[in-house]
């Protein structure tokens, strides 16, 4: 517990110590999403929380907002324990979360109304917030009449009209196009820099590295399984920041490097993957396409990560899943912020389509225990068929129901590409492909090769 007589300025605005959150699997056992999370948000600070999708960072944000109760640990807002939504904390949502039946004015006024503020007063406050965020003229419009960028402006006005002490942003820009996101972001930073808003601390949850570095004074890298803060990178640059400046690029490179080295590798010895390994969410076709891109000019087998992000136009989150997939399959590795093709990666790119599938299958069975497990079960059964539910249940010992479904869908996609197993959507059965003949030494069957 923080001591009461500590001067106010030294008490962090938000303080989390050893926060833990788990979920209950269908069989009643607990799986941990967040483990031992420590966090401080000091007065006058913008902090970014970066992590892959599903790493629990949104859950952490909701814990801070008082929307979700943690299973362990302590959390304080200005020295007082958080037990529910707190007056001084506002949140901006990825999906905007606007009430469709309320006008812009009605949405902005809602929080003031809940406080019991008189009509005249709240109309005045709302008008000020609407003007500040650049929505004047749209007071009477319904959210459905607005573009995405304007809707999120309403989201900001609605949060800022409460004069929040702390502003939480949950991927607030990720549903917007690049240009709109940039405008809105710099508008917000301007208000912050000029101290035109009462907010004294901002927490930005994001999976966009550049966005995090543009906004934050500190970037926290969040690891998954279980989620915890893994690294912290201070950003000592003046606002407004120039994304093309060398100092900026250097930090971005550093963050990319940190995000792509898995927590597993940091400890030194690489822990073997288990059946419950959370497969990266990336289709096999995309992995092959990336290998082809990197093998080709101008990369010739080695690519700078931010350059690759620009070339592929994929979101950072999609890229990380892609990298991880290629890495665990042994087709690529990442070192010093660069992406390299391994020998197997080159071999795959150069092979004929049928040969490609064989290489992919070989790596898949060797590196991913789940793939090997499914194939083994199918081999052992007399009719070479097994219901998906069987594997889904096994996965649910390790993952949430939704994640299990997602992982199974991913492995089915990979397995289909590798032709090591097939799946019937209607019956929900996994099976060994019928036309398969075990002849590993023969050259690729021509009929399939050009199909």
């Amino acid at each position: 517990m923080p001591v009461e007589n500590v001067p106010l300025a030294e008490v962090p605005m938000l303080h989390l110590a050893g926060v833990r959150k788990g979920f209950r699997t269908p069989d009643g056992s607990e799986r941990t999403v967040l483990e031992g999370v420590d966090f401080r948000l000091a007065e006058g600070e913008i902090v970014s929380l970066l992590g892959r999708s599903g790493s629990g960072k949104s859950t952490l944000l909701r814990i801070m907002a008082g929307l979700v109760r943690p299973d362990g640990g302590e959390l304080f807002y200005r020295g007082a324990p958080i037990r529910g939504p707190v007056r001084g904390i506002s949140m901006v949502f990825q999906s905007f979360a606007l009430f469709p039946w309320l006008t812009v004015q009605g949405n902005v006024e809602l929080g003031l109304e809940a406080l019991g503020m008189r009509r005249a007063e709240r109309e005045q406050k709302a008008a000020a917030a609407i003007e500040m965020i650049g929505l004047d003229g749209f007071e009477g419009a319904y959210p459905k009449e607005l573009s995405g960028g304007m809707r999120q402006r309403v989201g900001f006005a609605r949060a800022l009209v409460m004069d929040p002490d702390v502003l939480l942003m949950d991927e607030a820009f990720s549903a917007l196009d690049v240009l709109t996101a940039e405008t809105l972001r710099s508008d917000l930073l301007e208000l912050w820099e000029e101290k035109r808003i009462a907010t004294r601390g901002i927490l930005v949850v994001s999976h966009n590295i550049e966005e995090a570095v543009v906004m934050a004074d500190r970037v926290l890298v969040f690891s998954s399984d279980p989620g915890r803060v893994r690294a912290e990178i201070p950003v000592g640059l003046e606002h407004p920041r120039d994304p093309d400046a060398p100092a900026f690029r250097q930090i971005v490179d550093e963050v990319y490097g940190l995000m792509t080295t898995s927590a597993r590798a940091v400890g030194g010895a690489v822990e073997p993957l288990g059946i419950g390994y959370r497969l990266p969410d990336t289709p096999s076709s995309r992995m092959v396409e990336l290998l082809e891109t990197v093998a080709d000019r101008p990369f010739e087998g080695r690519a700078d990560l931010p350059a690759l992000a620009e070339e592929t136009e994929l979101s950072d989150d999609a890229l990380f899943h892609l990298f991880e997939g290629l890495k665990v399959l042994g087709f690529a590795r990442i070192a010093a912020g660069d992406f390299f093709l391994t020998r197997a990666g080159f071999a795959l790119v150069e092979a004929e389509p049928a040969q490609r599938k064989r290489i992919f299958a070989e790596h898949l069975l060797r590196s991913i225990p789940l793939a090997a497990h499914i194939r083994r079960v199918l081999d052992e059964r007399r009719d070479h068929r097994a219901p998906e539910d069987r594997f889904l249940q096994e996965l649910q010992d390790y993952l949430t129901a939704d994640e299990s479904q997602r992982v199974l869908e991913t492995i089915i996609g990979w397995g289909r590409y590798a032709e090591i197993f097939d799946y019937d959507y209607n019956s929900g059965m996994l099976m060994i492909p019928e036309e398969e003949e075990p002849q590993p030494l023969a050259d690729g069957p021509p009929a399939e090769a050009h199909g």
Partner: protein
Amino acid sequence: MGGRPDGVDTRGGATYEWAVELLLPAPGRRRQCRQILPGGPASASGNVAMWLRDPVIGTARSFRPNIWDLALLPPAFALIALLAWAGTQMHVPYDIGAPIPLSLDPSHLPEYLLRSALRMLVALLLSLAFTLSYAPLAAKVPALGRVMIPFLDILQSIPILGFLSITVTGFIALFPGNLLGVECAAIFAVFTSQAWNMAFSLYASLRTVPSDLREAAAMFHLSGWSRFWRLELPFAAPNLIWNMMMSVSGGWFFVVASEAISVSGQTIMLPGIGSYIALAIQQRDMVAIGWAILAVFIAILIYDQLFFRPLVAWAEKFKSDPGDEAPNSWVLTLMQRARLARAVAATCSALWGWLTDRLRRPWQRPSGLARRYRWPRMPSWGRALWNTGLMIGLLVAVPAFGALIQTEIGIAEVGRVLIYGCATALRVVVLILLASLVWVPIGVWIGLRPKLTQQVQPVAQFLAAFPANLLFPVVVVLIVTFDLNVDVWTSPLMVLGTQWYILFNVIAGASSLPSDLRDAAGNLGVRGLLRWRRFILPGIFPAYLTGAITASGGSWNASIVAEMVSWGKTTLVATGLGAYIAQATAAGDFPRVALGIAVMCLFVMLFNRFVWRRLYDVAAERLNAG
């Protein structure tokens, strides 16, 4: 209840099941909803669209009456005066057995019509009150929901006229010597045709309020009370209003059936359109029946224009994404343009805000850091106790019911009733199949022609609302005249009113077939039978299913009035469960009424579980692209 909050298994079949609308995936549903509106997707002119977007409840700057007010005032006052007069007529002394003076003179029809309409209005208000208390309780208290939702499912499977048979004597006893008891029984029957699916609709909506809106409400410290009025109810409004309107459409059938009640050998006739028909049947007056049909036709038209369409058009504002074609209503436009009407709306809105504000205060917890956010949770021992209680209740109830049947009726008759049930089930299945064979091709043919769709859709909608029991005498006369087989030829009566649900849903489905798929099929040269098998039938299947489920539920209900029909002194009785219930009701034999209703309930539930639920799963799983 199992883990499905949308609860496909919670739907019964006996009422017009608009709850099913909710269960369809959202995009398809939205499209469908719009297209089965009466009047079809009217193309709003820019001006009208602008007015529609303008909220009804808005601040009107100038309260000076304008020309629109003049147009609106006389009908508004007339309506209020009429309703007040009809209300006083309900409360009159009455003794069982005493005939209520009724006349077949068409000049009395407006009065009868008004009294029938008033019964429906009262039933609708009761249904709304029931919905607003039952659904939130079931949705918010999981322990109660576990019991309340299956219970609602059972209620929904009980034939509506069965409720009437069971409750009428009780209501009469409640108000001895006053007509109010019989009034209440009729109103209750209409209530049962409306309440269940409205409650299901609200329950389903409450369970699917988007989590981001929920979180936003929590972040802004809305108390539970204001969360309900500000978030949950508005979110549920479009579906609830839609269900309400469909319920009322179905209600015409039951108001006609419930006004002339045969109970314990007595026939009680309440002044109303249903009794008028019953009297016309007794006196074999074909001309009077013609008048009645015309009167109901006009009544439904008025109700549709003045009530249904303005409400549905207004509910559009609660939807989160703009519709392609907003439904259009001239009455709503009128109300939104009339200054006085807008002033009234603004006053109501202010009053409403003040009320919810005042009411909220006492319950609002003190704000501040120490305030606890409520996570609804029940201690595990509490849950165990609750579940054990439920089990014991079941273990006691089942043998008790068995013993009652044993002593009052005997097991042999139970077997016979089951066979009657099979006969009625056979009729339902065969007739739904026949109706599908007729209406699916016609519906597709219409649905693929947008202009025709706009003209036909309101007609089909209207036919579905039209109480088919008005037409029964016509069919009975034919059967008697040509001496036809009663078991076969009374069957079509069961689908007479419900087949239109198949038609207008198929039209809606066909007209929303994606045009790019149509083009692709044409481009690939897919024609004839292949086109039907690969493109049209899979494409309209979800919509067809909605229609067929509704039609089947309605047919079970209709069997009670369709399997036993009369014309003057002639009464035709078919072999079936509906006739069994109707006869037992007329004889006042309550154990047999209960048995018949329980068996029908059982059949409907089995049908839902083993036929409709499975087909629904097929539709949801395989025929929806991503």
